[in-house]
């Protein structure tokens, strides 16, 4: 029986285009949810650039430590803020002259503020970034010292997720360990939210990179 309609076989280029489209769709789905500014999981952040970013390089995902990791120092700051009132209620400070008490009070709040500000800065700027070309981990371990680790996406060999413990399970955060074939053998995204989704994004980026290699348009 003769065929009424015979579909043209898909060319290699069309197949690649289709695959590329589906990859883009999958990545968009994974990155669909997410908020801005003070969020720890920021997909495709707007108005944000990092120092070594290249002109055509796009940030796919920005990660910080899960906000729950800030709870211990926030509690400490609250305790420090109320401490002078407790001390005044419990101990008589009449033996200290008024002007000395006043300066002591100001110094106490200056130190408390500096401590809180430092902690916030450390949380806000210690970020892990996934771009369409690289993975970057930016750390500020101490004052005026920074540590930037990066690896090309195509150098990634393995991605491991480390979760466990009550708090981590409850709030769904953990470490993402990325083994690379580069100069730095391992990059660690510490205590990031939704590590499963992060791993998925890295895998999608890896597929995309492989796809680009197949098409011969590697940057």
């Amino acid at each position, binding site marked *: 029986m003769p065929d009424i309609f015979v579909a043209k076989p898909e060319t290699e280029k069309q197949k690649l285009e289709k695959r590329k489209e589906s990859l883009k769709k999958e990545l968009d789905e994974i990155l669909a949810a997410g908020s801005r*500014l003070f969020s720890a999981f920021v997909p495709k*952040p707007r*108005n*944000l*650039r*990092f*120092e070594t970013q290249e002109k055509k390089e796009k940030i796919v995902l920005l990660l910080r430590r899960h906000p729950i990791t800030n709870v211990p120092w926030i509690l400490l700051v609250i305790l420090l803020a109320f401490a002078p009132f407790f001390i005044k209620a419990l101990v008589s400070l009449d033996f200290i*002259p008024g*002007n*000395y008490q*006043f*300066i002591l009070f*100001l*110094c106490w709040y*200056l*130190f408390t*503020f*500096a401590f809180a*500000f*430092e902690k916030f*800065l450390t949380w*806000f*700027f210690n*970020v892990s970034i996934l771009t369409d070309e690289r993975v970057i981990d*930016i750390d*500020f371990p101490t*004052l*005026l010292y*920074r540590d*930037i680790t990066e690896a090309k996406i195509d150098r990634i060999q393995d991605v491991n997720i480390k979760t466990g413990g009550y708090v981590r399970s409850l709030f769904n955060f953990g470490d993402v360990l990325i083994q690379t074939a580069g100069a730095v053998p391992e990059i660690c995204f510490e205590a990031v939210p939704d590590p499963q989704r992060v791993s998925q994004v890295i895998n999608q980026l890896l597929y995309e990179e492989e796809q680009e290699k197949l098409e011969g348009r590697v940057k």
Partner: protein
Amino acid sequence: MTPAEKFIQFLVEAIPKFSILSLIKIFFVIGLFLYLAFAVIIIRQVGLMGKTLDGEFNLPLKFIAWVHLIISLGVFLLAIFIL
């Protein structure tokens, strides 16, 4: 009276005039001066962090760091004058 004896007598006479509160004031002033240096370092740090990761929130952070430095300077001067 030998020079050593003279020196000891000078110390014995001078120490009561030098009250414990004056010593505390010196500690306060030195401490606040070091804190002032720390406040300057915070400004440098915010600058370095902002250069590394340039976003919308950098300007308010720089503003906070500068306000912190001004307040630190105010407390330092206050300590010199009112203590």
